[in-house]
């Protein structure tokens, strides 16, 4: 009967106390798909009692328009539903599970109190079309949040409507396009550095611009000369990320902005990495015209396993007429939603934005205050530099200069043992750490992008460092440990090729 599997947990014991918080055997429940469970006639729900006559649908709606069959949809008891998703959750790893140094994602702690607040009935149960005299409190919240964000990045106005960073980018580029159109200008190009996040590129396309890639220089930033060369009246904007995805501050930004502006272009800044700058410098002061902010990064709202987020956009006055509607305004003591803005780009989203997320960001800013936010940026940068300093020598550091909130290593040193970034990442899992962002930014071959965030204590980071060093040792002494990783989790490495070759994107009866 069945086969035996040998699980090697060598290192767990090897390094002993030096690496305290370690992983261990855990009991995990296998759990079939929800569709592979349940039985006809079982129920897991309770609806309000019928207090009006129950009339069959075909009495009101022609049966040709009515559903005549149900494919799938499970029938389970409430407890079995609870167990199903409880078990699924136990296969996951979150910030509350351990260190999550996912570069460019700012996986900081998500305060529980903010979750509680967002759940308050007066927020969560509020219909978006409720008359304004009843929603002065929530409008005030949005108005103040706009101002807080504007102050933090040093811009004039903010829209809270975009649902995430990418939509913020789109909103920003649309406003630039609208502004140029208002100027009767037809510009076709957007300059984007090779270090940029994919969303910048795809956004420029959707905004129907042609993207011109700007090669970053050997120190990882945009070379002034290249902008001088490339910038012309055809260029609508430069999209720059600052600090950029290498975790490096774009030192030439001010001069670059001047050039862009001189040619009538705009400087769009991807503010996803704002966590390095709060209270230290204002992007607005550096010549940025538009910047989007990822509240689900810098402002501690949870990522939810892939959203929801919020990507407010901050702008300079000049772009104000083009803000999406409605704009939250204050007149005297009254807050209201202004739809009457003829030059607006319109709407990118239904209603006003991801309000539930905005509440958490607002609560976070109020909890931190000015010194708190500054302290957060300082410690985020401190953690990243400390990490970088201690790991260099063990891992190849393509850009050897002080970093901001994150640092990027590569697998160059490990190549000779035929160990790749992927192997290193997977091995980290066996030690109970979430891997860093890998193979991004694209300009760095085999990149390992690490962002510890200010939430992590020195001890936590030391444990991560010692583990990374331990893994570097393993790569020399016992590389198979890495190639076989992860071994301690529910599933081992998954066949992504198979998944893509014949996609199974849904359960199809027992066939699946």
């Amino acid at each position, binding site marked *: 009967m069945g086969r035996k599997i040998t699980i090697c947990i060598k290192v767990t014991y090897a390094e002993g106390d030096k690496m305290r918080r370690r992983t261990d055997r855990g009991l995990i429940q296998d759990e079939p798909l929800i569709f592979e469970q349940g039985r006809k006639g079982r*129920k*897991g729900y309770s*609806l*309000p009692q019928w207090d009006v*006559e129950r009339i*069959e649908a075909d009495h*009101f709606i022609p049966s040709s328009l009515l559903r005549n069959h149900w494919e799938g*949809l499970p*029938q389970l008891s409430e407890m079995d539903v609870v167990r199903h*998703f*409880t078990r*699924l959750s136990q296969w*996951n790893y*979150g910030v509350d*599970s351990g260190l999550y140094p996912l570069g460019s994602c700012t996986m900081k702690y998500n305060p529980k*109190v903010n979750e509680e*607040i967002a759940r308050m009935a*007066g*927020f969560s149960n*509020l*219909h978006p*079309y*409720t*008359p304004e005299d*009843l*929603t002065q409190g*929530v409008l005030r919240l949005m108005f103040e949040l706009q101002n807080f964000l504007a102050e933090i990045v040093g811009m004039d106005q903010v829209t809270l409507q975009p*649902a995430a960073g990418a939509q913020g980018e789109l909103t920003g580029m649309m406003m630039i396009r609208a502004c140029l159109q208002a100027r009767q200008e037809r510009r076709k190009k957007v300059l984007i550095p090779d270090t940029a*996040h994919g969303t910048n590129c*795809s956004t420029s*396309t*959707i905004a129907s611009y042609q993207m011109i890639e700007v090669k970053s220089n050997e120190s990882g930033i945009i070379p002034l000369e290249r902008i001088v060369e490339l910038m012309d009246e055809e260029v609508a904007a430069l999209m720059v990320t600052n600090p950029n995805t290498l975790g*490096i501050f774009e*030192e030439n930004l001010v001069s670059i902005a001047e050039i862009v502006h001189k040619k009538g272009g705009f400087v769009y800044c991807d503010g996803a990495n704002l966590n390095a700058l709060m*209270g230290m*410098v204002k992007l607005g002061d550096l010549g940025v015209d538009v910047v989007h902010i990822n509240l*689900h990064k810098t402002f501690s709202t949870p*990522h939810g*396993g892939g*959203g929801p987020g919020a990507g407010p956009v901050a702008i300079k006055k000049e772009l104000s007429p083009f803000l999406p509607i409605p704009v939250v305004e204050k007149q005297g003591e009254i807050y209201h939603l202004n739809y009457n803005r003829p030059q607006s780009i319109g709407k990118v*989203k*239904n209603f006003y*934005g991801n309000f539930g997320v905005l509440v958490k960001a607002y609560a976070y800013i109020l*909890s931190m*205050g*000015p*010194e708190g936010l500054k*302290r957060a940026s300082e*410690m985020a*940068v*401190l953690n990243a530099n400390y990490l970088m*300093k201690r790991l260099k020598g063990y891992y190849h550091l393509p850009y050897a200069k*002080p970093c901001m909130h994150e640092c990027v290593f590569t697998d160059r040193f490990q190549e000779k043992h035929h160990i790749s970034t992927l192997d290193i990442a*997977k091995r980290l899992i066996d030690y109970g750490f979430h891997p860093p962002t890998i193979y*991004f930014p694209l300009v760095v071959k085999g990149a390992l992008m690490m962002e510890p965030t200010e939430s992590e204590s*020195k001890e936590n980071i030391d444990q991560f460092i010692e583990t990374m060093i331990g893994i570097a040792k393993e790569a020399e002494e016992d590389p198979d440990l890495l190639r076989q990783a992860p071994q301690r989790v529910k599933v*081992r490495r998954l066949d992504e090729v198979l*998944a893509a070759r014949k996609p199974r*994107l*849904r359960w199809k009866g027992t066939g699946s």
Partner: protein
Amino acid sequence: MQDYLRYIPHTEEDIQEMLNVIGVKRIEDLFQTIPERYRLSKPLNLPEPLSEPGLIRHLSELQAPRMSQFLGGGAYHHFIPTIVSNLVSRSEFYTAYTPYQPEISQGTLQAIFEYQTLVCQLTGMEVSNASLYDGASSLAEAVLMASRITGKKKILISQTVHPEYRQVIQTYMDPNQQEIQLIPYKKEEGRIDEKILFDYLQEDVSAVVIQNPNFFGVVENFQPIVERVHDSGGLMIVGFTEALAYGILKPPGDLGADIVAGEGQSLGIPMSYGGPYLGIFATRERFIRNMPGRLVGETIDMEGKRGFVLTLATREQHIRRERATSNICTNEGLCALMATIFLSCLGKEGLKELALMNLSKAEYAKRTISKIQGCRLAFPSPTFNEFVLQVEKEPARILEKLKKEGILGGISLAKFYSELDHHLLITVTEMNKKEEIDHWAERLQYALR
């Protein structure tokens, strides 16, 4: 007060030790790369920090009062089983990032795979993505996708599509690449006017966009339209704002829709003053490679065990960059999870029962007001849980009067349709008890005097 330090663990000792290792004296030295003259000298102009209890007190005071609600129009007041909020509060779900590392994200991945399946079952389509931002942007992405597939410019959109959805489509569209033609509705039916539609339906049409149930709550009959659209080489896009309707309505997939895109808020997601919601997006297998958004697929691990991964990423921005099918990255994962739990909990019977209850309550409301002087149903067509009421008095006035009674009595349509300047959109769900409906009707009658 430095209570914010509970979120920042560094003690002064820690900082010193770390600075020493790095080899610098002061924190500021780490920010040298920022040009001196731009470094801020004075603190940000923000309020002083609040304590946790102070924060709770302050925000409780910003809450809106509880009202009796008859509002819909894209956001619906439905019952959310306790286990939905309970289970999404498991931190392994909500503090995780997008499942880029499948081995430690199987929970999220299997849940999304189940979500994709449930969406297919609900819409009658073949494939669903892992979610988009909301119904409006989802419909906009559908329009863009159609143009990618057909390579055509023109889009015909029914005027009965949610006005804000139309605005979003407008924004997403490139005026130089695409062109919108609005198709009016039949004044007496509140449904799309097929005749006019067919007049515009030429070879150059990329897609026809309708909403079902439409913004007036009316159940559209687009079966006849679908064929014509396909004949002309265009795609049929069906949007929706009230997903629950498909508990009883024939799924668009069964009627030949090519893309179904709409709002999933009704499936266990709170109204939260407009967001976060759930952009549902489903289509046909043959269009997969043109589909926007993330996809989860089934596969096996090195031991042959079933597992799930993000797949077909070659469509997406992080791989395809400027040639991606969409720029979406972060989507509405947790809301998709809520919908998954909601649907798992209700099952087919529950969903049907709930839909029927919405229908029955709305019909009860119709019957109740039918006796009232000074108002009438604007459209006789079948509806789900919303309907348009024509009133003889000034709508704003009426709503104001009801509000004084603690009732949000409906949505005035004037701001969306100039011609409907004496019309209210009324929504009735399972949350409106009979007495509540009676009370509403009674106050309405009073207001109409």
